[in-house]
Structures are given as structure tokens and as C-alpha cells.
């Protein structure tokens, strides 16, 4: 019947929203936390949630490049987090 169709969300779309919720959680937790190490862990959560979104679009090469480059920036930032400092 025209005009009365209901929008059906596929399983893939539900998964996209789920990973998006994880990404938003990671970004909010990065802002809330005060400890730099916790911030870096939350950034890792955020980057981990972005990966499935990239792969779902078919950009596996960019996902590989991202997973190689992101730990480098985390290691570089870790040099600034001095020992004994909160």
C-alpha cells in the first residue's frame, strides 16, 4: 500500500549505531576524565569504535593505515605524561 511503508533498519545499520554509541561514549569519557593515561585509554576506545565504521564502508586500506598511525601518536603523547604526575 503506497505511502504506508515502514522504514526497516537492517542489522548492519543497527551495528553502525551501536559502534557510534561506543565512539560517543569514548569521546565524552575523554572529556570527563582528568588523568592523562585515562584520556589516552579513552582515545583508544574511540579509535577502536571508528574502525568498524571504516570497514563497513569498504575502506579496509584506510583502516590498516589508521591502525598503524594512531598508536604512533599515542606513544608520542605518552612522552609528555611524566611518571608520578596524576
Amino acid at each position, binding site marked *: 500500500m503506497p505511502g504506508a511503508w515502514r522504514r526497516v533498519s537492517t542489522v548492519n*545499520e543497527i551495528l*553502525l*549505531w551501536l559502534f*557510534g554509541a561506543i*565512539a*560517543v561514549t569514548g*569521546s*565524552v569519557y*575523554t*572529556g*570527563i*576524565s*582528568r588523568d*592523562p593515561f585515562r*584520556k*589516552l585509554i579513552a*582515545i583508544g576506545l*574511540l*579509535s577502536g569504535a*571508528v574502525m568498524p*565504521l*571504516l570497514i563497513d*564502508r569498504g*575502506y579496509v586500506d*584506510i583502516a590498516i*593505515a*589508521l591502525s598503524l*598511525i*594512531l598508536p*604512533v*601518536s599515542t606513544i*608520542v*603523547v605518552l*612522552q*609528555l*605524561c611524566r611518571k608520578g604526575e596524576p
Partner: protein
Amino acid sequence: MTPEFIIGLIILLTGTVITAFPQRRDYLTRLINLEIPAFGLLLIALSYDETLALLTFIAVSTLSTFVMVLVIERTGGEP
């Protein structure tokens, strides 16, 4: 309006507000917070299928983080 676009907008806005008004007002906190809007922009570029923009943006943001870390080490980390 794909899900990536909406999620990217949410992360971009959240990250901008968090970077502008951080919990601790030192350089390290702002530098770590600066990575959040980068992810939001990455998701928005992903929703428009811009492959070259994605790759270039990731590389340049990591490079700028490296330069910022060098500068912050030189100043001692205190604003």
C-alpha cells in the same frame, strides 16, 4: 544523512566544546582533547567517500601532534 555523518557531527561538536573548556587548563590536556574533533571530522569525510581526504588528514594530524609535543616539551608543559 547517513549514520556516520550524524555520529561525526556529534563527536565533532563534543570534541570542540571539550577542547575549548577542558577540565585541567594545561597544554597536555588540550593536546589530547584535540584528537577528538579529528575523529569527528574523519567520520564526516568518511560519509562523503573522500578517500584522499581521509588519508591526508590522518597523516597531517599525527604530524602536527608530533610537532606540538616537541614544542610543549621545550616550554616545560606549564602554561
